């Protein structure tokens, strides 16, 4: 510790952006000496930095104008223009306007919009997001918002029924349902239906899987199991920050209290999980990337992980991170990936 410099001066010099190299070396040294020093330094800096606050207090119109021209430029550039792809907005209008669905997405690998007629039941619309596609938002005219994950299909009628609002889901979606006590919102899955009044929740229900996961963020939903005639046979009321996993094959129902924000991290392109088994994690990865991941060794399947991935990292990198202790080997044939324990 140099006797020439006193720390007070150095800190002030640093804050005023007038510090010399020699001074900085001494200051840095002092900071590295203890976390109390660091705490103190950063606290002072925090206060000093607040002086800039007033500069930004009245956001300038000029700043908005600059952003606005970015938006204009972006919406006019065609699909072929490299990184910034245009977001196409499809606006659907019907004579008996019961639903207006606005579907937007960017950087989608492929999405399909179809209109079908199901005998006697009126028209319905189907939105399909392909595997590896990015989150897509559907806005319904009742104000409900549904964000679809990749490998997901959503069907909704052209006109909502008088008494209820019904949609069908195969895949994963995050819902923010507008409250309407007169018209419960129902999400139909293969073997269940989720009944809501007005609330935020996430459903993971890929039809190729035998399990469904429903996570409630706020509000309340009732998860009802259906018999082969599509009639509800029992129901489970979910509270906020609860998640239920139902295995359609074995009939096992597992109810957990969790941090519900983990379940919708995929909207931001993240896969977040806490204490989840490798088996569950690889199911989600498999569904997202459109591959089948097989784990033969049942002891491997039950290893639990906590962590976050960015889906954009790509499957290979994600698997490498899971394998950070280098215990696993991966073999890929076509769309199948086999995970085995590395032989000693």
């Amino acid at each position, binding site marked *: 510790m140099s006797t020439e410099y006193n720390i*007070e*001066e150095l*800190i*002030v*010099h640093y804050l*005023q952006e*007038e*510090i010399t*190299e020699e001074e*900085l*070396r001494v200051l*840095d040294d002092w900071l590295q000496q203890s976390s109390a020093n*660091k705490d*103190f330094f*950063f*606290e*002072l*800096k*925090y*206060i000093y*930095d607040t*002086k*800039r606050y007033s*500069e930004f207090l*009245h*956001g300038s119109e000029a*700043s*908005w104008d*600059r*952003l606005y021209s*970015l938006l204009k430029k*972006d*919406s*006019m550039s065609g699909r072929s223009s490299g990184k910034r792809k245009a*977001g*196409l*907005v*499809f*606006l*659907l209008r*019907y004579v008996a306007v019961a639903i207006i669905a*606005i579907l*937007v*997405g*960017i950087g989608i690998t492929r999405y399909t919009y179809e209109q079908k007629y199901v005998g006697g039941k009126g028209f319905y619309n189907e939105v399909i997001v392909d595997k590896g596609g*990015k*989150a897509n*938002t559907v806005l319904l005219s009742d104000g409900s*918002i549904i*964000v679809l994950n990749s490998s997901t299909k959503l069907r909704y009628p052209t006109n909502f029924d008088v008494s209820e609002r019904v949609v069908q889901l195969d895949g994963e979606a995050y819902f*923010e349902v507008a409250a309407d006590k007169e018209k419960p919102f129902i999400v139909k899955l293969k073997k269940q239906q989720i009944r809501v009044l007005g609330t935020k929740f996430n459903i993971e229900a890929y039809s190729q899987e035998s399990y469904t996961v429903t996570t409630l963020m706020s509000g309340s939903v009732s998860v009802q199991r259906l018999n082969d005639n599509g009639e509800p046979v029992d129901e489970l009321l979910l509270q906020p920050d609860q998640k239920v996993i139902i295995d359609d094959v074995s009939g096992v129902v597992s109810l957990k209290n969790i941090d519900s924000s983990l379940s919708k991290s995929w909207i*931001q392109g993240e896969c977040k999980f806490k204490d989840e088994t490798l088996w569950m994690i690889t199911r989600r990865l498999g569904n997202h990337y459109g591959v089948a991941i097989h784990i033969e060794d049942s002891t491997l399947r039950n*290893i*639990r*992980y*906590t*962590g*976050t991935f960015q889906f954009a990292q790509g499957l290979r990198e994600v698997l490498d*991170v899971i394998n950070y*202790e280098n215990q696993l080997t991966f073999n890929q044939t076509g769309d199948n990936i086999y995970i085995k324990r590395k032989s000693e």
Partner: protein
Amino acid sequence: MVRRMKNQLENDGFITRFKTLYRENAPMLMFYASKYVDIVVAEDVVHDVFLKIWQRKDFLLSEEYIKNYLYRSVRNACLDYLKHQEVEENYVKDTINRLKIEEIHRNDDPAFLYSGDERMKSVRRAMDKLPAKCREVFELSYLEEKKSGEIASLLGVSIRTVEAQLYKALKILRGALLPLILFFMEFISKIFILFVFIL
């Protein structure tokens, strides 16, 4: 009966809602970013994030979710920017960079975006209570952005004195505002990639 709208800006409802979101959050986000990157880059960073939100129509989602997302995105963009600056071979720049990155991890709380006004009021109140000489010097630096040299000649004292007063002021303010500061800093880094291997 599908009508394709190439220029989505024609939808007034969207733009209004988006602009409101921008007005309510961009200033704080730019203030936050300007702590770590220069002011022009700060605006670019924030605008990039808002552009993405516009493209994906995320602004239609709930406020609580969006604010969190905005904060995370700006924070990560700043981190990326700083990390890419690292290969400079200039001790001062590299060290300041490193300290900024550390600072981002410490001040990690989206609640930062809220109650900026209250925070400022608290700082002002605490400033009002500073001892006279101390306050005079501090205000010249804090409010009028004067450097130590200027303040020294203005008040007819030595630079040493000015610096000592500034330091004293900061120390006093820190004492007065400590509960406020700690509320916004997290010393336990959030779990971004943390693997717990539990058999």
